[in-house]
């Protein structure tokens, strides 16, 4: 029986949420108010998580998303939705893989072909998926302290080297509340806060059902506050420049120079980027594999090769990094992801509640 502990769940949620989002400036449309937009999106995401996603799991414990969809939407609609979720998870995975490979090529390996980097990454993730849910959660548990320590050290260095100036955050909401909301909804909700929907594939293995909500919500809040703080640190250190830099956090830390000994922090930022995106892409890879294997009633290990192949080919289909980012911001975040993160779960929850009520009335 696969099972994982409280701390392991917490570790994966935090790592998954932080992912790479702390390195980038979320809600950059809101300019220096980005952190307020992020905070707002985080709270909306919290409500979504508490009242929709977690509630679905609580109404159907020991079932994963595919089971629930098949049980409540009937055979045809359920299968269709389940397949679309397999695609959604795979697509999220593809985006992460592609983004990661592109960044690696830009920053570390300018002469290496994209396909080679991608292949190496997918093999690595496939190995983690092959080892299964339990090992993956344990991996998160080992990585979390490292990631948090490196982040804290970097932020401490940023402040210690007198790079962060919080007066750059002022004036707050110069143009009113509107631009802040516009930036937050729906972009920041769908990335990263609404992504918690993927845990519907993983929660069923959690050992202690009573603490599920509490652990999940606390971990989410921790990760959310952490993202807001790094967001503030990025704006505080770079000001308006943070809007045009591709990895603002790396740019910020590259200014750190203390006593000409502590400098060149890039490798550490690259390490954070690596672990963060790796955890995220693998979580989606794992979820896609689990979902596909549940649909076809196969062992999840047999699905690794087809899903992995699909992700590999899918990642190569974007013409360029810019195309990928553009598609993401222009369409995915606004129109596509909210369907899977908000609309379908909400509909599912309503159906489940209605059915529950009918059952109660009958009883």
């Amino acid at each position, binding site marked *: 029986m696969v099972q994982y502990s409280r701390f392991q769940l917490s570790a994966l949620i935090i790592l998954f949420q932080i992912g790479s989002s702390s390195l980038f400036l979320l809600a950059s449309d809101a300019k220096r108010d980005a952190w307020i937009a992020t905070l707002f999106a985080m709270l909306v995401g919290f409500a979504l998580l508490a009242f929709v996603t977690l509630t679905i799991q609580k109404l159907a414990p020991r079932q994963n998303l595919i089971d629930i969809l098949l049980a409540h939407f009937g055979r045809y609609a359920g299968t269709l939705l389940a397949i679309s979720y397999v695609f959604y998870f795979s697509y999220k995975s593809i985006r992460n893989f592609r983004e990661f490979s592109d960044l690696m090529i830009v920053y570390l390996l300018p002469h290496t072909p994209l396909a080679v980097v991608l292949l190496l990454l997918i093999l690595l993730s496939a*190995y983690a998926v092959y080892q299964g849910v339990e090992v993956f959660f344990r991996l998160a548990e080992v990585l979390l302290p490292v990631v948090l320590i490196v982040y804290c050290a970097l932020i401490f260095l940023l402040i210690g080297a007198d790079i962060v100036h919080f007066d750059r955050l002022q004036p707050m909401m110069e143009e009113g509340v509107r631009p802040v909301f516009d930036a937050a909804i729906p972009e920041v909700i769908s990335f990263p806060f609404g992504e918690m929907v993927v845990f519907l594939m993983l929660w069923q293995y959690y050992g202690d059902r009573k603490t599920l909500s509490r652990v999940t919500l606390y971990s989410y809040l921790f990760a959310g506050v952490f993202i807001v703080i790094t967001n503030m640190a990025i704006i505080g250190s770079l000001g308006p420049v943070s809007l045009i830099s591709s990895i603002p956090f790396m740019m910020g830390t590259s200014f750190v120079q203390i006593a000409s000994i502590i400098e060149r922090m890039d490798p550490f930022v690259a390490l954070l980027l690596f672990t963060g995106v790796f955890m995220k892409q693998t979580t989606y890879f794992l979820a896609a594999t689990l979902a596909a294997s549940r649909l076809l009633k196969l062992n999840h290990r047999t699905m690794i090769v087809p899903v992995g192949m699909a992700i590999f080919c899918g990642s190569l289909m974007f013409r360029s990094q810019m195309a990928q980012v553009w598609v993401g911001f222009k369409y995915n975040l606004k129109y596509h992801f909210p369907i899977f993160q908000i609309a379908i779960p909400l509909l599912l929850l309503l159906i489940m509640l209605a059915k529950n009520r009918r059952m109660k009335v009958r009883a």
Partner: protein
Amino acid sequence: MTERRSTPISESSASALEWIMDELGHGADIVTRAFACGGADDQPLITLVYIEGLVDPMAVNGRIVDRILDASQTLGEAASAPERLRLLKEKVLAVGGITEVQSGEHILKSLLEGHSIVLAEGSANAICANTAGGEHRGVEEPSSQTVIRGPKEGFTESIRTNVSLIRRKIKSPKLRIDYKSIGTVTQTQIAVVYLKDIANQKIVDEIHERLDGIDTDSILESGYIEEFIQDRTFTPFPTLQNLERPDAIVGGILEGQIAVIVDGTPFVLLAPVTFNRFFQSSEDYYQRFDIASFLRLIRFGSFLVSMLLPSLYIAITTFHQEMIPTTLLVSLAAQREGTPFPAIVEAFIMEITFEVLREAGVRMPRAMGSAISIVGALVLGQAAVQAGLVSAAMVIVVSFTAIANFVIPAINMATASRLIRFAMMILGGTFGLFGVMTGLMFLLIHMVSLRSFGIPFMLPMSPLSISNLKDVFIRLPWWALSTRPRLIADPKANVRQGKNQKPAPPSSSAGERNDE
């Protein structure tokens, strides 16, 4: 294994003896001694058989031969063969371990274990007296796991000595020693040693089950056992510890681990084991806790260095020169200017040269040691740099890597890092830092998936156990280590010592009291 046959012992001593000699191939080291005891010369009443070299000659001569000769009158007058056997057992033979055996196979087995067999004419039973002994190495200082402070005794090749070394340290009736013999031909004795109620019974059963499952003809060293019972074969990491030091084994047993002693080798296995155990030396617990903790951190650091340093050097000099401070970069570039090979080839040349040197150092006769070190240090080090084959920086990197490797207390973990190093070098040479990170992540996934007898290999880190962390990266003072590591020992035997034992000076000092 074929079912054990049972051949009855002939009542005639002569034919019984003949059967034994036939079975053992009339070896020259089989000693037989007939005692007439007043019977006919060609039909002695009592016959003694033993194998020279396996027995303790003092015991055979003084306690068996002497006693039988002294009592030959009484023995000759005994009424019947069973009566004579009873007399021998009860009055004559002055040996502690005496058993009466009925089958020929039992006689052969006992003979080969160093027992002496006493046959009495007319009896279908034989007496088997434990006179095992003979020459073996005495207890010496361990050669591969040395410490500065701590006991200087090490295990030997004799399982009896090894068990007694453990018994002497744990004077508890709960110490359990389960013997079994494995190997259809070698019949090697194995002892499973643990503390009842402290070791987890499930793991003890698991070890017994795996040991009983071994079907082989020979066990010559604990390495055979290790490869038969470890959880995963295809991994560079060892999942059993081998130790030459009784104090380290006893320390493990007291924490709930289980020792497997194999006759014929001073290396005793310890299971289940977690990753951090390979970085502990028994000396950590004898030294002050602050220096012990510091040394632990040094060891973990050295493990990383020994695994990663060459690959990081290759990656950074090949792909990410911008990460090197400018002055260092200039001097590195000046050094590398004259060398013909890319960094990865250079590193491979030097690493493999070092591995060859190291292997040569182990194999060659001691007398040639100094010759090799001169050749190694001067010819391959300095001369290679001067000849422009490799850069000086690479020699520094390779030698520091090699030295870091010797810091790791467990040799089997040190060898793991040696193998991983080469894979990392290839990754670093092809994908730079990205490759090294990929390799590290792969290792981490692999390590969290490992188990040793059901115990997660990365135990205190994953699953996280805060109380176990008291003795992983740092060692807290003894009075703070009040519990055994969670999950390894029996959960009921968690508490190890009393709380609040932190020493403090007396509340009113001795000097003040004198003033009163």
